[in-house]
């Protein structure tokens, strides 16, 4: 029993890890085939996982409604939105359009999902301004450098800025192409080493936190 509970998961991780790491070095079509198959499998498993998620969401809001927690009425809005979308979607077999015309599901997507998503995204325009106001203060040398770089690039991006300070466009290009490239490169190298080390540890069963194991 302890084998099933403790060692078997580690064995599965090890085998899968080694097989799919080596897959990269095999150019044979069979290896490509293996990769596509397992990708499909992962999608299917992900579908099952969605059941876990939706159950959790249902449960949370059911509890809210049952306990009459503040704002429980909104949970009904959520249920209604979800159930109606599912009903409409299944009615038209999950197709947004049929024969070139929009279905009711497509309508929900175009007139509800798209504007909601777009507006939430657009709020960033306001937040980027308030974040700049709050944090672009020359408190230290580092903060000052960040602030100056941001202001120059902002100037260099718009026609008015290029008009007032013609060189800002060139400086912007230089900062982005040279300084920014250097930093991203170093960050990427660091991250990648960390990622490879973590993956290796998982495959060799050294790191097992993902199994909820902690130390054993």
């Amino acid at each position, binding site marked *: 029993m302890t084998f099933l509970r403790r060692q078997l998961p580690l064995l599965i991780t090890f085998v899968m890890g080694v097989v799919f790491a080596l897959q990269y070095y095999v150019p044979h079509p069979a290896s490509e085939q293996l990769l596509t198959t397992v990708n499909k499998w992962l999608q299917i498993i992900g579908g099952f996982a969605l059941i876990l998620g939706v159950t959790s969401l249902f449960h949370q809001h059911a509890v809210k409604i049952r306990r009459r927690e503040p704002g429980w009425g909104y949970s009904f809005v959520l249920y209604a939105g979800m159930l109606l979308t599912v009903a409409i979607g299944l009615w038209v077999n999950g197709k*947004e359009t049929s024969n*070139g015309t929009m279905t009711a599901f497509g309508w929900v997507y175009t007139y509800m999902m798209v504007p909601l998503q777009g507006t939430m995204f657009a709020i960033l325009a306001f937040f980027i301004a*308030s974040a700049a106001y709050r944090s672009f203060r*020359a408190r230290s040398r580092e903060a000052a450098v960040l602030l100056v770089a941001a202001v120059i690039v902002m100037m260099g991006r718009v026609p*008015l*800025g290029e008009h007032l300070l013609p060189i800002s466009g060139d400086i912007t290009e230089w900062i982005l192409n040279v300084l920014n490239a250097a930093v991203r490169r170093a960050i990427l190298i660091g991250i990648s080493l960390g990622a490879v080390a973590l993956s290796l540890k998982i495959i060799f069963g050294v790191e097992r936190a993902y199994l909820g194991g902690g130390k054993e």
Partner: protein
Amino acid sequence: MTFAERMVHIDRRIIFLVIGLCTLLPLLHPVGLAINVSPEVRAVHDYIESLPPGSAFLLSMDFDPASKPELYPQAVALLRHAFKRNLRVIGMTLWVSGTGMADQVISQVAREMGKTNGVDYVFLGWSPGVGSLIITMGQDLYKAFPSDYYNQPTSSLPVLRDIRTLRDVNYVVSLAAGTAGIETWYVFGKDKYQFELGGGCTGVIAPGLYPLLRSKQINGLIGGLRGAAEYEVLIDQRGLAVAGMDAQSVTHFAIIALVILCNAFYAVIRTHARRSGQERVGRVAEE
């Protein structure tokens, strides 16, 4: 709390209001700040300018609502130009999710320019197949689209008289937010059916399309909102895009001004604190 301190900790809703107004006002009343026109946008404009009235111009609006902010103004500007030049306009889309929007833009501009559906322009809508659709259009347009978006049979439409295949089309412009888009039109249509091809695209994919421009696979490229603004300047009809670029300039400078103000107040607080011997403010800020 001194005035400077209060200003540093200003209610952020005031900043939101400033940004909102700086975007909205230029959109309602464009100022038309100077915009330099790039050669790739001018190329599309000049080609349309060179076409004799009555030539066939096909506009493929290959984008969905997500890319509307950038490509919608491009479509409006191109359509206005084509209608002004009295070209016969054929609208369509390769993206099924963009059909409603494409129909809307073409009928709106046509109404504005006093053009009649079926006589001066037609909107074909969407049909499945992407690459094979273009090939079918190259062989027989009426077969690819037996009827237009409004279910009128295409073969009897006055606007499509003498336009049997893509070979009879003089200029195709694809406004693309990805694939299917400009490359699709090039690969399946351009050389085979001998029409000139131009492109418009979102700012994100523009860099990837410059190679096509350099190798003359497309004769011009309108990139992002900026490209649309340039086109509006060229046809001297400043609209959404010029307004958008104005809004960009104004909001960028509003943020810069806010940052400078904030730093000014911050400097005041710091000198104040230093004078009264409170090193704390500076120390806390070092972190």
